[in-house]
């Protein structure tokens, strides 16, 4: 299995994980492809709550989710997320696939559960956002 030693989000030196590595780590398949498999993935996040994605999503991060409705793709587009992974081998409805094709979002499907998909990637060195800053004590 591919191993990446202690990656830092902003480190220009560390080996960035590539989409092709993600496919291997998650035994995933590509459903909609836009960028090549050599595209770099700087970090990842997981959520089933789209409001959380909009609140904490970060430009360039990869999203793992168990939701497959078209709004997941819209949310990704708005949050600057280019790659979405559907966990638990969920096949999305055709509307979702069509929207992903139109809006430049790459979609992967893995048979691992959310917990295990995240665990495998994190263990391989793909970082998350780190502690999230809550602004103004509002939430």
């Amino acid at each position, binding site marked *: 299995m591919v191993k990446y030693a202690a990656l830092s989000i902003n480190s220009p030196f560390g080996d960035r994980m590539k989409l092709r590595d993600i496919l291997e780590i998650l035994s995933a398949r590509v459903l909609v492809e836009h960028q090549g498999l050599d595209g770099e993935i700087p970090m990842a996040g997981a959520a*089933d*709550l*789209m*409001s*959380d994605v*909009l*609140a904490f999503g970060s*430009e360039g991060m990869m999203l793992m*989710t168990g*939701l497959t*409705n*078209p*709004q*997941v793709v*819209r*949310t990704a*587009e*708005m*949050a*600057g997320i280019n790659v979405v992974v559907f966990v638990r081998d969920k096949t999305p409805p055709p*509307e979702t696939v069509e929207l992903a094709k139109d*809006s430049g979002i790459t979609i992967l499907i893995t048979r691992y559960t959310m917990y295990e998909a995240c665990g495998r990637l994190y263990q391989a060195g793909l970082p998350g956002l780190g502690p999230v800053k809550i*602004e*103004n004590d*509002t*939430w």
Partner: protein
Amino acid sequence: MTVIDITKVQELTYSTRVEAVMSSDVIVVSPNASLEEVKRLLLAKHISGVPVVDGELLVGMISMSDVMESMEKGKLNSLVRDMMTTEVKSVSKDSYLIEAVNYLGIKGFARIPVVDQEGKFLGIVTPGIVMGSLLHEMDVKYQQKEAEKLQTYRASHIFDDMTSDGTSLVLRFMVNDHDFSNAGKASSTIKKSLQRLGVAPGIVRRVCVAVYEAEMNLVIHTDVGGEIIVDVRRDRLKVSAVDHGPGIEDVERVLQPGYSTAPQWIRDMGFGAGMGLANIRRCSDVMTLMSEAGTGTRLETLFRFGEHALGSPAAPGKRS
């Protein structure tokens, strides 16, 4: 030449096929020609060598140095077939330019013949041809880039081209209630328009998240749909989401994070967690929510461009 230029050239040599650039209008000689004939041909055409072609097949190469060698030996009347180089390096028409470049550049060949699978002679590639094709390709790519730039230029220069005391560009979008499959379409279109106008990427992202939340609110909570109005000025952008729906009973309360009136089916879709307005407030510089039960709701958000003002950097209202 910068590093980027080198990469671009390399990229082109790896992506361009020999067939696309080779010269097929080539002078060739028959193996039965005499060296005397070859000498006259090379001198007349100012070239240093020619492919030897028998029928359609490439059988060798003969060059000025072969001619000189035979002159020294006093054998100018001998035939090409006896003096030519028969072990000729050639490239297939389907190979990439990089293969020809290796022979020409690294091995120092002056020309490399191109053949098909059966060894049929098709043309030649010379350093000049490689240079010319690369320059042409780069020029085409450059012009495409310039054309893209021009598009952005035109869009943002509406603020320079129109003279007024304050120019606005207003984009309006109608949002249907409960139309989940089209929800987000307005936001997506707004994102593209703002990119086209040259709004700074960080600001585009904040606007998009806010507009998308507002659009979802119109879809989820109104029964008549609503309108999203984006008002772009040189130095700031205002987004209003207006509806004549049911209105909000307790405005203070809906602003509390986590408070939600969304039905279960909306929550099942990953929305309605009561974070929307908090998120909009976080993304925007100023947010105002006005509502009256039974009348409707107006949400206004402001985004300042700061140092990323649109149009030319000249003072607002003045044309440079």
